[in-house]
């Protein structure tokens, strides 16, 4: 269990590192709904990974699969919507410049 917690912590750091790096490189200024989308999607993705690993440890393969399907799908939807919003933000910023 402590290994899972460590792994999840590492993934969370990597996600945050990746997002902040990408924002800095592209000089994007995110609106608050975009930030909210990023945070919620990241949390959902982490939840999916944590669920998957916990169910595998428990040897509940069906629960692992169903979790991946449902929570993973929700994370993908969140990712799609957030991406769309960020693109919209960057376009409006470019127009402003």
């Amino acid at each position: 269990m402590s290994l899972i917690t460590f792994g999840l912590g590492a993934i969370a750091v990597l996600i945050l590192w990746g997002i902040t790096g990408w924002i800095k490189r592209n000089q994007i200024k995110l609106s608050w709904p975009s930030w909210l989308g990023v945070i919620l999607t990241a949390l959902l993705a982490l939840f999916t990974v944590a669920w998957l690993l916990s169910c595998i440890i428990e040897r509940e393969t069906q629960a692992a699969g169903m979790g991946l399907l449902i929570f993973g799908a929700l994370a993908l939807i969140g990712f799609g919507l957030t991406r769309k919003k960020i693109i919209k933000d960057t376009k409006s910023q470019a127009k402003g410049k």
Partner: protein
Amino acid sequence: MNNNVKTAIKLDRRQFLKISALATTSGALMGTSENRSPIKITNKCQRMDQKNTIFSRQLWDYEFVKRIESSIDRASMEALEKVKGWTPLDQALDQAAWALDHKFASGSEGGQPHSQAYEWDEPKRRKKVEFQNPKDASRKIKKAARYLGANLVGITPYDPLWTYSRLIKENFESEPNSDGKPEFEQFVPEFPFEPKSVVAIAIEMDYETMALSPSSLEGAATGLGYSRMCSVGYSVATFIRALGYRAFANGNDVSLSIPYAVAAGLGELGRHGMLITPEYGPRVRLVKVFTELELKPDNPKAFGAWEFCKNCKRCADACPSQAIPTGEPTLEGKTISNNPGVLKWYIDPEKCIQFWRENGTDCANCITACPFNKPPMWHHQLSAGIVALPIAPIHAIMAKMDKFFGFGDVNDRRANAAFWEKD
């Protein structure tokens, strides 16, 4: 009426808060002093005669015995030995798990009183160890109980309502009578002391083996639970006696267990008629220690199980003999083995025991299928938090999701076959 309205309007916020606090406190005090259990108990509820319990009926209710014996197909029972989960290897594990119970509490699982570990009158220390107060004594008894192997422990005052009005004991020493029927005696329980407090103890049963229900391997999980019951119960009673106070442990004999466990705050009563604990769900066995030592009782606790059971019927669906009702709670059951007068779901113990006989071992499908039966992992604790919300549609959805995700599967032959392969 108008005066009342005027008075109410005149109350300022501070007065209103004072009155509310007073009303809440007095309400809470009233609730704890009269009926400690959150279960509705009516005057119709009387002390039960142990002779009417489903196990004891096998000593005297020949019609019932004949009925359940007639449903057993000997040929299929012999063929069962080739089925994974019932092989001689599986049965050997079952037998080994029960060994301590059979050696030190022989027959107690079927209700036989006064067996070795559950003896009433064992010697105690002459000089009493004094405690600061009942709260101090409770804290130390609980600490010792956990150290001695209890997974959960709670304390409640002794209530004679839950002790059988008469006990029944098979006389093993005398020969069966001319009809080949067992000899037994009945007597009113007269304890060597007046019990004041009850230490209710829950023993966890193994999650993985319990999930193999109904099979001999699941029987091993149950048997190990019983063996630990007599070991922990006897040890806790010995600890109290070593402090100079009289005490004895009892399992399925002498008294009902669930009312004490509920009153002691170990959990709630479920649709399947068993205790549901927040920690292990119904996957526990119960042993009680009666003592003359005055202890501070715990309060009953509700964590949403009763409400959840109203909307979840997973145990009823998983029951191979349809012994668990799917309707609303009632005040009486269908058989003489149900003690009426308590608002609950009355299972049909005759159907249940008949399936045990046909199955060649016991059955724990209702325990396995219960959504509260989960190992202590974060995602289950999160679900338990959601389940505690008193919102009926959420309960129904959570029960469906639990099934959808594959938790609580029963009759899993592959898992039984894989048992000996896993390290």
